């Protein structure tokens, strides 16, 4: 076997921490990621965690990427193996020439290692046990000690980590100094006993700029605050719970009356998802901006109410942080698998507006915009996040708001308008856009009241089972959906350097991996025009993009090519022309995967015909 030379790379590698859930490793690992950012080097961290509180394996992966590739890369250059339970699998996942960092307190047989990697043993338990006596301290500081050792091994500036610890424990002097002490304990041991640095190094750069480091769920929750949401009703479910939690903590800081201290919002943890969406619909019916946050199983439970929202035309905002389904599926793994379930949610003929943010900045923008759209269109708006965006810290452009911006409260008939004798028909299409006027309850003593119901009714909200009346209403709803096309965020197109017959459509959290894959594909000689879809109903540019290309790849994170089905169904496209590229194992899609799958297909298309070879 040829000797594998160790990987040598500056600011471009993947470190993966294998930990036991509940061991307090998360904060140390996050500190590691933030420390690299402080070097001016972009990182893209990902939590890979079980549906469990204590005991099961959990991983934290940090992609160090000066080039700014924020998608998952795949592969591991350095494994910090702190979990004996997953040792064999973790060892096997290291790239040839990679590094294994482990606790060498107990001797391990040679059979437990690999010859083609660099093994770095640090007696973490021995160091901790000789320094600390309290069991909890031993566990927590062990994490900081390995962080110190990594600081030396990766040539990181310890001052930057100290600075971060200082910010974290501001005012808690004892915790601050003991953390810094532990950091140096690990770092000093590594410097004295190991070859430092390794081939993997962090070098100061200036590639982070003004970007912020935030989880998509927190950004979406902040979008709800800025978008004017006053009522939030939710039921705990991974991976959306942190969105509701974030809304509560943002509101605590930003939404209390300065004089009275009272809350300008109401948050209710419902008894289930049915109650949560019911509260949202009741509040929206009564003129407040309301939302719920949920995931796949919650969407299944909310179906009946979503149909009511569509048919009785009541605004609602649902933030769906998607996870791998069906059924309970993989609650802590990511997918984009609720596209069809949301687009056509509920029984009967329904269609719903979906927004697909690519990152936290867009999650913030789309979450805020969803409330305008919901009130303008008087229907449910889905903000389609996923676990990858929602629960991971992502380097993102700063959040932006325009102070001149006013909320679009939609068509609401006021007491004055009613008094002026305006004809009020709750389901009357006065402007030809399919959108009727509504009134808030309690508006006027004698005018503008109506009976809201999920049963069929005429333009003046009077109960009717007449076929023509029903069809008239259903047609108007189609017109309204057409109106929506030009209101929702448009697709963004980026063309290849050279004219090409091939295109690719993608959306949501796939974006960073796609951007990186384009570079890899171009290096292989494949030119692709790109279209990032940001909303459903699809803008007309989606159909024209497909018409302009022989084949269009549709990259998704689900098994059944759901977005592709939606495009085929809604735009009457020949399915042959849309080639599905699907990643659905629950791990975030990678550039390597996309480039591999599209590249192979392109290579096949460009195979020289047999007779030409012969001649």
């Amino acid at each position, binding site marked *: 076997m040829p000797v594998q030379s160790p990987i040598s790379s500056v600011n471009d590698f993947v470190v993966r921490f294998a930990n036991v859930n509940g061991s307090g490793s998360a904060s140390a690992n996050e500190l590691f990621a933030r420390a690299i950012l402080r070097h001016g080097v972009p990182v893209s961290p990902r939590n890979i965690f079980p549906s469990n509180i204590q005991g099961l394996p959990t991983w934290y992966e940090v992609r160090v990427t000066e080039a700014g590739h924020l998608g998952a890369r795949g592969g591991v250059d350095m494994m910090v193996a702190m979990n004996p339970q997953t040792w064999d699998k973790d060892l096997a996942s290291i790239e040839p020439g990679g590094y294994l960092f482990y606790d060498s307190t107990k001797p391990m047989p040679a059979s437990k290692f690999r010859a083609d990697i660099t093994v770095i043993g640090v007696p973490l338990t021995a160091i901790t046990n000789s320094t600390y006596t309290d069991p909890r301290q031993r566990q927590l500081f062990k994490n900081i000690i390995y962080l110190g050792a990594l600081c030396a091994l990766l040539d990181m500036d310890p001052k930057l980590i100290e600075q971060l610890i200082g910010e974290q424990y501001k005012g808690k002097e004892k915790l601050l100094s003991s953390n810094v002490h532990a950091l140096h304990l690990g770092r000093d041991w590594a410097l004295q006993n190991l070859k430092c640095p390794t081939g993997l190094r962090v070098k100061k750069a200036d590639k982070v700029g003004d970007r912020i480091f935030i989880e998509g769920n927190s950004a979406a929750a902040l979008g709800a605050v800025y978008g004017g949401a006053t009522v939030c009703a939710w039921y705990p479910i991974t991976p959306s719970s942190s969105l509701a939690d974030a809304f509560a903590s943002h509101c605590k800081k930003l939404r209390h009356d300065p004089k*009275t201290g009272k809350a300008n*919002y*109401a948050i209710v943890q419902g008894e289930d998802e049915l*109650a949560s969406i019911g509260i949202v619909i009741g*509040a929206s019916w009564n003129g407040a901006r309301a939302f719920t946050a949920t995931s796949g199983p919650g969407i299944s439970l909310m179906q009946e109410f979503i149909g009511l929202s569509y048919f009785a035309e009541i605004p609602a905002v649902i933030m769906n942080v998607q996870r791998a389904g069906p059924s309970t599926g993989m609650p802590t793994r990511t997918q984009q698998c609720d596209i069809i379930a949301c687009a056509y949610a509920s029984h009967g003929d329904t269609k719903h507006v979906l927004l697909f943010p690519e990152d936290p900045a867009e999650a913030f923008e789309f979450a805020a915009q969803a409330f305008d759209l919901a009130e303008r269109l008087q229907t449910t708006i889905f903000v389609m996040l996923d676990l990858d965006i929602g629960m991971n810290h992502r380097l993102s452009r700063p959040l932006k708001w325009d102070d001149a911006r006013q909320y679009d409260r939609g068509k609401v008939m006021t007491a004055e308008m009613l008094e002026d004798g305006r004809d009020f028909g709750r389901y009357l299409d006065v402007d030809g856009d399919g959108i009727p006027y509504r009134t808030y309850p309690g508006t006027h003593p004698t005018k503008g009241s109506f009976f809201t119901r999920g049963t069929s009714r005429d333009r003046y909200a009077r109960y009717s089972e007449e076929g023509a009346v029903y069809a008239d209403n259903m047609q108007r709803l189609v017109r309204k959906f057409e109106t929506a096309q030009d209101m929702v965020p448009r697709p963004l197109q980026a063309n290849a350097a050279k004219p090409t017959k091939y295109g690719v459509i993608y959306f949501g959290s796939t974006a960073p991996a796609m951007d990186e894959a384009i570079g890899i594909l171009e290096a292989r000689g494949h030119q692709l025009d790109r279209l990032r879809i940001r909303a459903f109903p699809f803008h007309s540019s989606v159909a024209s993009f497909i018409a302009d290309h022989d084949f269009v790849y549709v990259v998704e994170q689900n098994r059944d090519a759901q977005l592709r089905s939606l495009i085929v169904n809604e735009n009457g496209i020949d399915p042959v022309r849309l080639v599905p590229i699907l990643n659905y194992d629950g791990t975030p899609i990678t550039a390597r995967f996309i480039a591999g799958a599209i590249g192979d297909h392109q290579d096949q298309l460009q195979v020289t015909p047999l007779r030409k070879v012969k001649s």
Partner: protein
Amino acid sequence: MTYIAKPKFQHPGLPRNDLGFTHRDYEGKVSTLCAGCGHDSITASIIEACFELSIEPHRVAKISGIGCSSKTPDYFLGNSHGFNSVHGRMPSVLTGANLANRDLIYLGVSGDGDSASIGFGQFAHSIRRGVNMTYIVENNGVYGLTKGQFSATADRGSKSKKGVMNNDNAIDLVAIALQLGASFVARSFSGDKTQLVPLIAAAIQHKGAAFIDVVSPCVAFNNHAGSTKSFDYVREHNDAVNRLDVITGREPITVDYAPGTVQVVEQHDGTRLALRKIDADYDPHDRVAAMTFLQKHAAKGQIVTGLLYVDPEAEDLHAHLDTVDTPLNQLGEDVLCPGTSALDKINASLR
């Protein structure tokens, strides 16, 4: 009946309330329920209670689920917004509506199928949250719209119209409401308007979760011998613990009561309830005793009616959430949107 439009004519001598409204101003569309349906009597009682309280009709939001009872909001308060929502989900819709605008009066109308079966959970949770509402269950023990299946409030041993025996234990919503902390709990009978009207009026004035179970016979499917929800059965087994007068304003009580028979309850908003005791030992402020009393009498086959429990110091969900006095649906960007300067600070804290 239902194809006849309601005549607009009204007698000039109809009595008017403090707002100058007549009963007609509190009516809705013509009922589409069966002639003689108990629910129509409850509708009439709601109209009477709102008239007597001089409520502005458009300041009421009437919300229901699905079923015969849930259709009734169309038949009263025609100038109010109504919401015939989803089967069993009235409580959540009402909760949301109440959060959006604390200034309206919320009337939740439901049935025994809607609240004791499909919506049992929502019933329970809206009560335990203390939503400020009047929650009326029009309880007939059967599914009327689907033609006579037992509901979960049908008593064990009672017989359906087709002669089928109900073997399942009944859910007593009053007992559950008491256990879950409802701050106003009453039971009445659709055939006893003099008892029911003041109970509805008091419930509307109560600031908190007010629950009224109204036994309301279904003339089409549950008014036969063997039923425990028929007019005859309820009349024979009705055990009223008290009679209620609602006193609005602060004027002295002028009604002439026999000494020792009246208990005056002053509510948070200053309204007073004069309870004429029928059962001298019954104390409507003792939740635990009320629960025991109910159980004992239910075992004897008696239907206990009246104001069973009231907490005059009740708090509602808005108090628990400490929301602002201004209804949330009236807050604008100026209050709700923290603006760019706050966002700049947030961005800075995330670097």
